[in-house]
């Protein structure tokens, strides 16, 4: 079919212009980013596997309960036994880095969107676009700006994983009852005091639900980023596909699933732990 409008051309022009004029900036970002990711990776890989498993198991035990703790420990052990430990830790490092960067941007943005209707009107379609665009598409600008490797992987991951955190932060803050905010104002609270003493604490559970989703999306993107040499489990999955190696494909896929379940259950529990405390206390009260 003949092209009548060529949007792609303009996008290309824009990306070209950016890479031509801001090359040093991109290089700096790349260096700092890669160093950070490798730092996290180094930490995870050099720590003995049983220590990592024990720490994650304990975290699960205290925050999510015994079931999740047992599953996490067994699952991670299985990953180790299958021989995917290093790849898994590489993926973890990428997830941790991307999630932190995504949240650092998403939280203020979400707060801003909750406060200003205009900002929300602008942000919402952008978020829709970011979330519905096929994930692979982000790999293209990532490669153009930063060529291949871990940081472009993280770049694509951040874009893909950010929207839920922005949305849920905004939602959480908007849901804070107006009368509680009014009460704070009536006692002479400044905007900053209202944000930190009322809005953020009351929105915390919703925000943590957003964090959970961001982590899950980061995980799925990290696997895709294997295509641009970001390393980790993604590369193993890709290798399995390329060589039509069903065994490798299945094993690496299984490792991804285990990692996903572990991360999901633990972060979900973090969001609910303060709620649970309230519930169980009130039960005690009722029984009296």
């Amino acid at each position, binding site marked *: 079919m003949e092209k009548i409008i060529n949007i792609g051309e303009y996008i290309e022009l824009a990306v070209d212009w950016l890479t031509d004029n801001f090359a040093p900036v991109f290089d700096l970002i790349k260096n700092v980013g890669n160093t950070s990711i490798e730092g996290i990776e180094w930490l995870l890989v050099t720590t003995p596997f049983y220590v990592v498993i024990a720490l994650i198991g304990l975290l699960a035990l205290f925050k999510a309960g015994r079931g999740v703790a047992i599953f996490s420990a067994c699952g991670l052990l299985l990953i180790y036994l299958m021989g995917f430990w290093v790849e898994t830790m590489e993926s973890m490092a990428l997830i941790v880095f991307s999630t932190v960067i995504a949240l650092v941007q998403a939280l203020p943005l979400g707060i801003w969107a909750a406060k200003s209707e205009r900002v929300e009107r602008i942000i919402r379609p952008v978020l829709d676009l970011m979330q519905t665009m096929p994930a692979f598409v982000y790999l293209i600008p990532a490669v153009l700006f930063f060529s291949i490797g871990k940081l472009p992987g993280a770049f694509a991951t951040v874009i893909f994983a950010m929207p839920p955190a922005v949305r849920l932060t905004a939602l959480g803050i908007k849901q804070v009852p107006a009368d*509680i905010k009014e009460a704070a104002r*009536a006692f*002479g609270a400044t905007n900053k005091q209202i944000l930190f003493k*009322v809005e953020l604490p009351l929105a915390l559970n919703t925000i943590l639900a957003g964090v959970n989703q961001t982590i899950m999306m980061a995980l799925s993107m990290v696997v895709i980023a294997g295509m641009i040499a970001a390393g980790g489990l993604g590369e193993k999955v890709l290798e399995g596909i390329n060589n039509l190696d069903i065994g490798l494909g299945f094993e690496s896929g299984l490792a991804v699933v285990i990692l996903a379940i572990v991360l999901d259950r633990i972060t979900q529990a973090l969001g609910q732990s*303060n709620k649970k405390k309230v519930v169980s*206390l009130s039960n005690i009260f009722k029984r009296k």
Partner: protein
Amino acid sequence: MDAGDIKIEVKELSLIFGKKKAQALKMLEQGAGKAEILEKTRCTVGVNKANLQIKTGEIFVIMGLSGSGKSTLLRCLNRLISPTAGDVIVNKVNITKEDNKALLETRRIEMSMVFQKFALLPHRTVLENAAFGLEIRGEDKEQRLQVAQEALESVGLKGFENQLPSQLSGGMQQRVGLARALANNPEVLLMDEAFSALDPLIKSDMQDELIELQEKLKKTIVFITHDLDEAIKLGDRIAIMKDGVIEQIGTAEDILKKPASDYVKAFVEKVDRKAIITAGSLMFRKPNTVTLEKDGPESVLRKIRESAFEVLPVINKNKVFEGFIWLPEVLKAKKQNAESIKDFITTTCPSVYPEVTVEEMLPLITNTKSSIAVVDEATGRLLGVVTQTSLVIESTRFNKEEIVELKEQASEQ
């Protein structure tokens, strides 16, 4: 009125919600009403040229139907809403002209607010909630928790410090709200329908306690309600609002006897007749009682003598209401040397639940000479008695014809 006595003065205060404020304000000055302004400018008049003076140490009640502008007027006093026109003067300082910093200070030091739906922080304990105002003010932790603790004790919440608001009943949550306001030790308390969300009995308790506290603390209280009963009980003076206009300011007596407009008259009558005045609010609590299983004729006789009533309510050991015992019956029982008064009590007598209104109780007194027992709906326990005298006093607010009519209706049934 001596100027030194005036804590809060509101002068020609108007507040308009909407975009075309200037146009609406102009119309307001030319005397247009709320409906007309809404139609022409799509602006809502919240408050319409209000003037009032609130004296130091009084409970000033603002009353009116829903949407009459009570909350809006109250929020102008601490400028949660900034007035469109007019002045609010607190302690001789014009709040409407204060800059942001001075305004924060005013809210932190001079005025505290209590809210209809409590507005407590759900993630904080009762103690931390009570200390909230002090925290905002920047007092150090130890100091503020101690002051909050004292405030909690003053509203009877000792022992609940470490609970969360959701673990408390509505009445107790509002005590926390009150403690939070008192902890700041402000001169002025702004209370927006503070007791409206509570059950009638608890509401009445809270009103009593507020009066008691006020005797000690002597704050200046601005209290909003749509309940005439509450206004009369609490208010040293009452302002009645309609469509943003203050229709009348005066004591309860003034307003009941000399309503300034037809609206006030209708309001007072309507509220009266629909009788928010209930058995629960009218009843005499903790009356002398006779316990069926315990008291024999002798001891009943002594109790009757002590209480100077001719008749006493009878309850069983579970405090469930059984009936009334009359003096002649006791004497009869004594004469017959009866062991128990069981066969002598009158059991065919009316009893009502606390939320029954005066209007509904009136027909009951035609068939009996005794008081009316007020019992708990769930347990049947005796809560109190409403004497005929107090019913008659209440009902003199009705026309004579109406009383006759009610009595006739009752006897037809």
